[in-house]
């Protein structure tokens, strides 16, 4: 018989066990040293992100602390707080963002309750209406509000009164319509993933509909509502087109920063305003990506529990339906007016059908520039996004979290800040890009890079890493595995990133408005110019063209998402 006592085990070496904070990094470096390809590609990406995302932001920060001569000063900030002309923009922007957030989240909640907690036959068309603004460049609602409620608009003329929607009311309505779809999607997603059995349990314990909503549903939905509120707040702050068109000359941060730079060449003060745009965005970024990191997945993967559809009861149902119907009516009207404007000689004056607005050579030139720019930006964003996604999720590149954050920054930072940063950075040697198509392409690509990256990450999370390991085990090197296995499997993520960036590229304004040069105008920026100068028909026609492009892109995206189950950014 074997002597079992002789089967020795080795005593644990306690010293080797203690976790050291740098162990992870050491392991990364060791791993990466075995893969020079990874290190080189990671290094190039880091350099690009530094140059086209972080340095422009840094340039704005530096400029805000500099005199025009380039010496350090706190004077800019002192001036900012000393003159109402400057600081009113901050106050106005905060008031507007707060008001927009309250209204939009409230409406998002109302639409959600109607679509998920009633049996009303109107719930499907209402849902559709609430999402309709997604297909439009955001500022076209301002355009149509001017047609409707401008000094010589529909309301003023029909009623023969002195009426002008420009100013607070106009911006608030325009932003509300613009941001409603996003808030609605987030809130609805939360409600759908809430387990209906919890509400049934409350009912079973004797709570009435209102009490269930108050004590169970809303508390459970609070994190989702908070997330929607944060995003709307930031989007309202960063919005450029609506305040520009329909702000009625009231100063807001994004618009004033633009006017200070372009009108007065006052780069230092423009930078100070941009910093006040940047700070809240960074705060929300931190909350979203640092504190809430990882939690979003639970709602995505959670299968909705099976429960019978709940109904709120008439006391809640009818008021909610009324609010939603009124909102829906406004949305339909704004769309209708833009379409009518596009096909009418001079709306309200010569109401004859015409196609002349679609025959502007300057307009088509702008559309062509927009398309060229968008294709370039989409190619860069989707390609780099894919490589980034792979490096971040699959290869242990040292500093991969920093890479990911830098990419996410591009999207989180308000366009005004990025536009200003590009002007400051690329207007002087060593790298002069201003006035070229390439600066528009780079700016848009690096702002939207994270969407392609997130699509890639989402796809890679679906793919089991052992598929790549199998390829390695069968003799393929890193590059061969990437080419033969990863790229074919990530095709859908690439297309999604491409189409999304392309779509955003055709309608974005806030950053590129700083960068367009004579003869290099983009369609979206040109619509703003036209609307400001009162060329409503032409502006509407261009808007219709852009809507058609966006519709096409969204259709494509939906197809991709449905086929592949990808999760795109913004969740």
């Amino acid at each position: 018989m074997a002597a079992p006592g002789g089967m020795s085990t080795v005593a644990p070496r306690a010293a080797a066990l203690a976790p050291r904070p740098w162990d992870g990094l050491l392991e990364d470096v060791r791993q990466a040293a075995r893969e020079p390809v990874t290190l080189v590609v990671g290094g190039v990406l880091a350099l690009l992100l530094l140059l086209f995302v972080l340095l422009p932001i840094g340039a704005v920060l530096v400029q805000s602390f500099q005199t025009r001569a380039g010496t350090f000063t706190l004077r800019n900030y002192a001036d900012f707080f000393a003159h109402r002309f400057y600081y009113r923009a901050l106050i106005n922007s905060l008031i507007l963002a707060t008001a927009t957030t309250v209204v939009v989240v409230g409406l998002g909640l109302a639409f959600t309750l109607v679509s998920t907690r009633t049996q009303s036959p109107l719930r499907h068309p209402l849902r559709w209406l609430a999402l309709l603004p997604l297909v439009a460049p955001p500022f076209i609602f301002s355009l149509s509000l001017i047609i409707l409620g401008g000094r010589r608009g529909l309301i003023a003329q029909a009623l023969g009164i002195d009426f002008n929607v420009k100013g607070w009311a106009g911006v608030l309505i325009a932003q509300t319509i613009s941001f409603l779809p996003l808030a609605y999607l987030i809130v609805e997603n939360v409600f759908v993933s809430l387990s209906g059995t919890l509400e049934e349990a409350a009912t079973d314990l004797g709570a009435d509909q209102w009490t269930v909503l108050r004590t169970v549903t809303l508390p459970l939905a609070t994190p989702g509502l908070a997330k929607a509120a944060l995003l709307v707040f930031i989007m309202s702050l960063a919005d450029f087109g609506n305040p520009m068109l329909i702000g009625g000359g009231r100063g807001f941060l994004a618009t004033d920063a633009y006017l200070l730079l372009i009108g007065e060449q006052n780069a230092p003060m423009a930078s100070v305003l941009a910093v006040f745009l940047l700070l809240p965005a960074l705060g929300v970024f931190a909350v979203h990506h640092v504190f809430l990191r990882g939690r979003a997945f639970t709602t995505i993967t959670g299968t909705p529990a099976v429960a019978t559809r709940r109904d709120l009861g008439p006391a809640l149902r009818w008021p909610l339906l009324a609010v939603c119907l009124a909102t829906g009516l406004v949305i339909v009207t704004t769309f209708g007016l833009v379409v009518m404007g596009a096909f009418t000689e001079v709306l309200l004056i010569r109401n004859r059908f015409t196609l002349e607005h679609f025959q502007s050579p300057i307009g088509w030139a702008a559309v062509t520039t927009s398309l060229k720019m968008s294709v370039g930006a989409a190619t860069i964003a989707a390609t780099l996004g894919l490589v980034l996604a792979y490096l971040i999720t699959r290869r242990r590149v040292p500093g991969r979290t920093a890479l990911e954050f830098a990419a996410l920054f591009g999207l989180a930072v308000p366009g005004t800040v990025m536009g200003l940063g590009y002007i400051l950075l690329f207007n002087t040697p060593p790298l002069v890009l201003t006035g070229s198509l390439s600066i528009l392409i780079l700016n848009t690509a690096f702002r939207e890079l994270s969407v392609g990256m997130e699509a890639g990450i989402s796809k890679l999370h679906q793919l089991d890493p052992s598929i790549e390991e199998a390829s390695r085990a069968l003799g393929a090197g890193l590059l061969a595995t990437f080419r033969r296995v990863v790229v074919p499997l990530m095709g859908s993520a690439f297309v999604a990133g491409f189409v999304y960036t392309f779509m955003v590229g055709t309608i974005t304004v806030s950053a590129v408005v700083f960068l367009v040069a004579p003869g290099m105008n983009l369609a979206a920026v040109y619509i703003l110019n036209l609307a400001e100068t009162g060329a409503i028909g032409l502006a509407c026609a261009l808007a219709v063209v852009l809507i058609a492009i966006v519709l096409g892109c969204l259709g494509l995206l939906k197809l991709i998402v449905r086929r592949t189950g990808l999760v795109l950014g913004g969740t």
Partner: protein
Amino acid sequence: MLALDAVTKRYGGTVAVRDVSAEVPRGALVTFVGPSGCGKTTLLRLVGGFVEPDSGRVILDGEVVNRHPPNRRATGMVFQNYALFPHLSVFENIAYGLRIRRTPADEVRRRVMEMLEVVQLQGLGDRRPNQLSGGQQQRVALARALILRPKVLLLDEPLSNLDAHLRLAMRDELRRLQRTLALTIIFVTHDQEEAMAISDRILVMRGGRLEQAGTPQEIYEHPATEFVARFVGQANFVAATLDRAGQESGPSVARTALGEFEVAPDAGSRLDGAAWVILRPESIDLLPAGAGVVAGEVVSASYVGAVVRYTVRVRGEQLLVDQFDPQRREPLREGAAVSLALPRRVHWIPRTA
């Protein structure tokens, strides 16, 4: 063929594999077995080159391969979820390794066809992996690894995704392939029964350490530790004191509350004589009251078909006792008086406080 020499692997502060040394002889099927988190998969990945050891050596065919990436090792791996390339056909999945090696097309064709035959998937070459059943996918994964004629084939819980019947069939099939193709295989599983049934040698792992290595019979009949005894099958542990007299020659004696047992001598002689003797439930005979050596009382019974497993209280100890073929006997009720016949010679392990 393959040797592990004092291999250690840490992840941050946790030690996944701690100072493991083992050998895998040519043509053998060796199983790493243990509960989840015991380090068996990490050990397999160390062999496959997906993980680099912090210290120690991985020696393949006489060559230290610690730093060789997976694509430069003559190992083949079959993954738990098969990891078939979803965008390639069955044929191209199996051909993948040959294509990477730029093998001429006609040779690729010949060898893939040959492989399809070996794993009995003739005619399915044009299918996509998602058009195959779990068992078929398993065969493709196997064929894909085998076609490169690896020196060592690594199987990571390959049967765990199959249903119970298919699992048994694939197990036999795997064993047959291993014998006919003279494959050297490392097999990882958490299922001790699977390990016992398929292996030439078993390495029982626990907490990153190698707890015991041996043939299935050695592991079951002479477990080195309480953990091993409990992990493979059921066991009763009875406190014993070894009689240290006359241990140089012949068997020694273990005294317990149930009487004396004949045991192997304490060769290490580093103990004060405290030991556990191990009584497997199937080696105890359940007899009518008075017929056996010690009297007892039935505490509970659980009927599992082939066996009734009784818990019997005997002199303050609770023992598990298996009675086979329950159809031939009257079931015993709780409280029934019984007696037990115990094996004369038993296995013991050291008992520490």
